[in-house]
């Protein structure tokens, strides 16, 4: 249960560096809290621009997470369970949006869904008159794009760690593939599913670069919370700090919900 007394004694210098590392990560949070004008906090958070941005962010990030789940689950399944040529290459490519600068992601999305030069976008616009960019759809696409890899990796990892004997037993008892998936696999997957959904959602919520490039910055239509924070920083810095606090608290909430998965409550 507890760490052995030998391994818990670490070289002194290492402890100091570790403490600096912790302070480095925590101080910026103090920086936000310090700058929040508490007396007018509620008033700032209920201003139309901010409530609109929060509403948009919640809608877009929830829809994006659902989309990521619908597309990511089967993809993770393929990557974890099906042997095919180029599987590791595909896995590497699928995780690319995680490491790609978000603004590059935005440009890439313009190249696909843009009205004028986009691969699909120009077809959609010319034949149906549908424009994706500068819309809530574009926000959802941008957020799904950056969130999906997180979900795929979490689920794939979960699938790999499931003991195949559970599913084999279910098969012996006569369960078909869909039944096995819903009754056995998804239940066993629960921890990684929840972790994946939470990280993907937080990533979608915080998305900035791809959104501003691909979906623009329209108040009440595509200006999500991070964009609003950025715009407010100049005009009303106090409101920007208030909104940042909200985002931080949301993330703390996510961590709290996931404490069993991440915060080392190992038994």
């Amino acid at each position, binding site marked *: 249960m507890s760490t052995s007394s030998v391994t818990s004694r670490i070289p002194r210098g290492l402890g100091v560096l570790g403490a600096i590392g912790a302070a480095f990560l925590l101080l910026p949070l103090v920086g936000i809290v310090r700058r929040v004008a508490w007396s007018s906090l509620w008033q700032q958070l209920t201003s139309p621009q901010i409530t609109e941005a929060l509403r948009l962010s919640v809608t877009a990030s929830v829809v994006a997470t659902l989309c990521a789940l619908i597309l990511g689950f089967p993809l993770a399944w393929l990557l974890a369970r099906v042997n095919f040529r180029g599987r590791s290459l595909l896995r590497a490519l699928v995780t690319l949006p995680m490491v790609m600068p978000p603004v590059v992601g935005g440009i890439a999305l*313009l190249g696909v869904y843009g009205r004028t030069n986009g691969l699909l976008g120009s077809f959609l616009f010319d034949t149906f008159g549908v424009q994706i960019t*500068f819309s809530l759809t574009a926000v959802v696409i941008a957020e799904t794009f950056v969130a999906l890899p997180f979900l795929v990796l979490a689920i794939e990892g979960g699938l790999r760690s499931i003991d195949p004997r559970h599913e084999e037993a279910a098969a012996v008892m006569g369960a078909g593939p869909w039944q096995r998936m819903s009754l056995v696999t998804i239940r066993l997957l629960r921890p990684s599913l929840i972790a994946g959904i939470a990280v993907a959602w937080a990533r979608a919520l915080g998305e900035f670069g791809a959104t501003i490039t*691909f979906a623009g910055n329209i108040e009440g239509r595509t200006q999500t919370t991070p964009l609003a924070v950025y715009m407010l920083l100049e005009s009303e810095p106090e409101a920007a700090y208030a909104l940042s606090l909200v985002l931080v608290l949301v993330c703390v909430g996510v961590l709290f919900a996931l404490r069993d998965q991440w915060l080392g409550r190992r038994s």
Partner: protein
Amino acid sequence: MLRRGVVCVVLAGGVLSANATITHASSRATSSTAQGSITVSAAASLTDAFRALAREFRSEHPKVRLRFNFGSSSALVSQIQAGAPADVFAAADTSSVDKLAASGQVNKTPRIFARNSLQIAVKPGNPLKITSLVGLSKARVVALCAKTVPCGVYAATALQRAAVVLPESNVSRGVDAKATIGAVVNGDADAAVVYATDVRAAGRSVASVTIPKAHNVTAMYAIASLRESKNAKAAQAFIDFVMSSVGQSTLVRFGFARP
């Protein structure tokens, strides 16, 4: 003999910058003793002009290294107020520099170094046949600068003069002038109200629509050196260069009007 002389000058110049006064024929060098590096925080609309200007500045002041920090003038003011290192501030309006002057952060009185005006940028070929500010209501998405940024303030004035009210749900806000025209160049915005110089710099990726004088706005660009600067000499050298005939003609080449 002559060749040896040149070699000597080159060598001397390489070792002692003070010896730049011993000029050889092809050099136009003023007695530049400025050296070191300076950071110029400049309005995004100056990006192309200042980059070109920097190359010319370099030939006159080879020992000065210029670093640019382009952004919206209002963002640059916030940065400088927050202690960002900068030696020169060049803004797309006078009020941004005045703000810093009021808090005692600039040396001397700011100087006006260029003028600019607004234009409408539309997609090449002007598919929506937008011919005026009024025509912007035909656009699904109009890109404007953020409300706090000079070009956003100017655009608001121009729209007001033309009695045009654009619903905010059709307006995408760019963080600065370059980002705003970028929404038309790279993105799907139908039109943008930006500086004439931005439209010119965008070349064939947009078409331009002029805004009549009665509605248009004159943007006055102001420049000042900053009190916090650790290299006042080089900062002043850059400002002098911007005001010089070479600097001014470069700005004109990029579409700016003389002050």
